[in-house]
C-alpha cells in the first residue's frame, strides 16, 4: 500500500520535476537526458550510495530524464575502469563514480589507468580520516599518542579496514610523518573492512584505529570510541575533536567521491553535467541526503576538480614513497 502511495508520490514529483525541467529547458534550451552511472563496487557500499542517491535527486529535480546504474565490482575498481573506457560510447550520457582509492591503486600500478583517462566532472562527498581509541582508554589526546610512538614506535598497534598500503594505512602514515615518526616502524594491522576493524578495537586487539569519519560517527556518538584527531582542514560541525592542522601538523586529507565522464566527453556535455551537480548541491533534497547519510559535502567542479586530484596524487605519491610502496 505504502509502496503504491510513494510510487504515486514519486510520479507526481516527477511530473512536477518534468514541468520544472521544461521551464528550465525552455530557458536554457537543454534537452532532458538519460544518464547511465557505472559503479566500480558492489551494491550497498558508499560508492553505490553516492551514485544512487545523487542519481535519484538529479531525476527528482527534473534535471535529467532518467538514470540507470550498473555495478561492476572486481579488480579493485579496474574492471569498471576498463569497461567504462571501452564501452562508454554505448550510452547517451555515461558517468562513472569513483573515489580516492582510484589514485592509490593507479600509483600502486594495480591497473594501467588513472584519473587522467577520465574527464573529472564534480566531486560530491568528502570522507575525512579519523584516529579513534576505545572509550575506556585514557583520554590523553593525539600529542600523547605521538609522544609514546616517538619513544617506542611499536608501543601502539594500529588497525585499519583495508590492506597495507591502501587508504587507511596511508592516512595514518601522513599523520605520523607530520609528527616526525617513521611510519614504517609503526605496526599496522589490516582487517577485511571497517566493521571488522572496529570490532578489533572494541575487543582490544588493536589500540587505535585509522578509519573514515563517516562510518565511525555513529560509534563516536554512541560513546563507544573516542576520537583523537581528524584530517579535515577545519573542525567538523558538532564534533569536539581537533584537526591535525590546528594541532600544528599541517596535514589535511579527504577521501573524495565524485563523478567522471569518459575521456572523450564533449566540452558542452561536461559543462552541462557540472551545472546539474551544482543545482544538486544547492537543492534541499541533496541536503537531506547528506544529513541522513552523515556525509560531508565537497565542492570541486571541472578544472578545479582536476587540480584537486593532481594535488592529492602528489600528496599520496610522497607518502607511498615514504612507506616504500612506490619508488
Amino acid at each position, binding site marked *: *500500500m*505504502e*509502496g503504491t502511495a*510513494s*510510487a504515486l508520490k*514519486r510520479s507526481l514529483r516527477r511530473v512536477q520535476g518534468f514541468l520544472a525541467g521544461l521551464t528550465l529547458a525552455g530557458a536554457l534550451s537543454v534537452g532532458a537526458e538519460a544518464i547511465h552511472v557505472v559503479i566500480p563496487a*558492489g*551494491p*550497498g*557500499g558508499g560508492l*553505490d*550510495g553516492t551514485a*544512487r*542517491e545523487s542519481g*535519484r535527486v538529479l531525476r527528482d529535480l527534473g534535471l535529467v530524464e532518467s538514470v540507470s*546504474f550498473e*555495478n561492476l565490482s*572486481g*579488480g*579493485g575498481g*579496474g*574492471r569498471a575502469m*576498463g569497461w567504462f573506457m571501452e564501452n562508454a560510447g554505448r550510452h547517451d550520457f555515461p558517468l562513472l563514480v569513483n573515489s580516492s582509492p582510484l589514485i592509490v591503486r593507479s600509483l*600502486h600500478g*594495480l*591497473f594501467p589507468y588513472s584519473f587522467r583517462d577520465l574527464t573529472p566532472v564534480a566531486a560530491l562527498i568528502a570522507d575525512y580520516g579519523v584516529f579513534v581509541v576505545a572509550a575506556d582508554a585514557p583520554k590523553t589526546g593525539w600529542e600523547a599518542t605521538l609522544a609514546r610512538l616517538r619513544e617506542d614506535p611499536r608501543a601502539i*598497534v594500529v588497525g585499519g579496514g583495508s*590492506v*597495507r*598500503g*591502501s587508504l587507511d594505512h596511508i592516512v595514518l602514515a601522513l599523520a605520523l610523518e607530520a609528527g616526525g615518526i617513521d611510519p614504517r616502524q609503526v*605496526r599496522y*594491522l*589490516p*582487517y*577485511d*573492512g571497517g*566493521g*571488522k576493524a*572496529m*570490532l*578489533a578495537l*572494541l*575487543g*582490544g*586487539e588493536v589500540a587505535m584505529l585509522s578509519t573514515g569519519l563517516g562510518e565511525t560517527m*555513529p*560509534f563516536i*556518538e*554512541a560513546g*563507544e570510541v573516542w576520537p583523537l584527531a581528524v584530517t579535515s582542514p577545519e573542525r567538523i560541525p558538532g564534533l569536539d575533536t581537533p584537526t591535525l592542522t590546528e594541532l600544528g601538523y599541517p596535514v589535511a586529507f579527504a577521501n573524495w567521491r565524485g563523478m567522471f565522464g569518459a575521456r572523450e566527453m564533449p566540452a558542452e556535455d561536461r559543462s552541462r553535467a557540472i551545472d546539474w551537480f551544482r543545482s544538486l548541491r544547492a537543492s534541499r533534497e541533496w541536503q537531506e541526503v547528506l544529513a*541522513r*547519510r*552523515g556525509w560531508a559535502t565537497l565542492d570541486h567542479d571541472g578544472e578545479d576538480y582536476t587540480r584537486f586530484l593532481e594535488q592529492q596524487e602528489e600528496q599520496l605519491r610522497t607518502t607511498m614513497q615514504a612507506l616504500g610502496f612506490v619508488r
Partner: protein
Amino acid sequence: MWEGIITGLATALDPGNLAWVAFGCLAGTFIGMMPGLGPITAIALMIPVSYSMEPAAGLIMMAGVYYGAVFGGSTSSILINAPGVASTVATSFDGYPMARRGQAGRALALAAFASFGGGTFGALALMLFATSLASLAMQFQSPEYTLVLVFALSSIAAFAERGKVLASLISALAGLMLGTVGTDPSAGIQRFTFGRADLADGIGFVLLAMATFALAEAFHMLVRGDSEPVPDRVGKRVRLHAGDARAIAPTVGRSSVLGFLVGVLPGAGATLASFFAYDLQKRFRRGDEADAARGVAAPESANNAACTGSFVPLLTLGIPGSGTTAVLLGVMLSYGIQPGPRLLETEPAVFWGVIVSMYLGNLVLLALNLPLIPWLSRIIHLKRRVLIPFVVAFSLLGVYLTSLNPFDVFLMLGFAIAACALRLNGFPMAPLLLGFILSPMLEENLRRTLLLSDGTLGVFVGAPLTIALLAACFLVWAVPATRLLGALRSRNASRRRT
C-alpha cells in the same frame, strides 16, 4: 521488551507488509535457485525496488528475500548437486544422494522444515539474547578465529569416507592452495595470477563449486554410465516419511543452537555453521535409515539459524558480520537508519520490526514453498540425456552471468575435468571446496596473529579460550590420526613381509 515485540508484530502484520514479505520470499527463492546467485545478489537486485518503499516495508521485504534466497540455494544443491552459495555446500553431501535415490521431494521438504526450525530458533534467540550476545562477538579476535578455522578444517575428518583420510587431506590442501590465488589479503599485491587480470580477484567460489560439484558430477555420470535415477515414490505430494519429524527434531535443535552461536561471530557465519553442524551430526549418527535425513536437516537448520545470528552484531553493534548483512546495512543507511547500540532506543519499531519480520519470513517461506516442491523435484526425474546437458548449461550460464568473463568459463571447464579425474581416482571433492572457502580467512587471521605476536606461536596457548579451541582441534583429529597411523603401519608391515 514485550511492548517492543507487539509493536514489531503490528508493523509486520500490516496487510501491505505481509504482501511484501510474500513477494520477497518468492523473488528470493527464484533468484536463489539461479546458479551463482545467492542472498547477497538477491538483496542487491532488490535494492532499486526498496528505494521507493517505506523503511519498515522495505526491510520486511528484504528479510523475505534473504530467507527465500537461502532456501533457493539449497534447492539446486539437493536437486543437481550445484551449491550456488558456500552455506549450502554441506546440504549437498546427503541431500543430493537422497535425491538420486528417488527421495528428492522428501529431501526438499526436510530442508524446508529444518530451515524453518533453525529460523524459528534463531528469531527467538535474537529476541531474548541479542544484547547479551554482542560481547561474544568481541571475545573472538585473530588468534581465536585462526583456531576456529583450523577446527572447521578438521571437520574434513567427519565427511571423509572411511579409509580416505589421506586423500581427503590432500584434497583439502589443494583447496587451501587454490584459495591463495589472487590479491594478497595483507599486503594487497597480486600472486599466482600468471599476470592475468582475470585472476586478480582470485578464483570465484561459484566457479569452483559448479566445476567440482555440478559439472564434475555430470561428467562422472557420462564416464561411469550411472543408471537412471529412481523415480520419486512420493509422487505429486510431498510427505515426510513416518517418524522423520521425530528423527530430525534433536538434530534441528542441536544444529540451531550451534548455528546461531557461530552466526553471531562476524566472518563466514552461515558457511562455518553448516559445516560444523554436519560434522556434529556425523558424530551422533546411528547407522539407521534416517541418518541421511538428519544429514540434510543439520546444515539446513544451522545455516538458517546462523543467518539470524548474523543480525546480532549488525543490530546491536552496527557492524555487519557477513556480506549479506553488509548489503542490508547499506539498505538501512539509505533509509537513514543507523543500526548500533542505540537502535533499540531510537528506533524500537525498526529493531523489533526487523526481528519479527524475519520470523514471519520463515513462516511465509514454508507456506509458499511446500506446494512448489513437487514441481521442483521433477527435475531429478529427467532422463540422463536431458539432465546432463541441462546441468552443464545451467553451470556454464551461471558462471558466465556472475562475471561476464569468458575466461571464467574455460577455467571452470578445466577445473571440472581435473575434478572428474581426481574423483575417479578416489579423491573426494568436498574437502577441496572446504579448504578453498576457508583459505583466505585462515590466512588473514593467521598472519594478523603472527604480526601481533612478532611471529611467536605462544599466543595460541595464551588464553583459556584459545586453549579450549586448540584442545578441541586435537580431539577431533585423534581418531582419524590413529586410524591413519594404523593403516600406514599395517601397510608397511605387509610390505616387509613380502
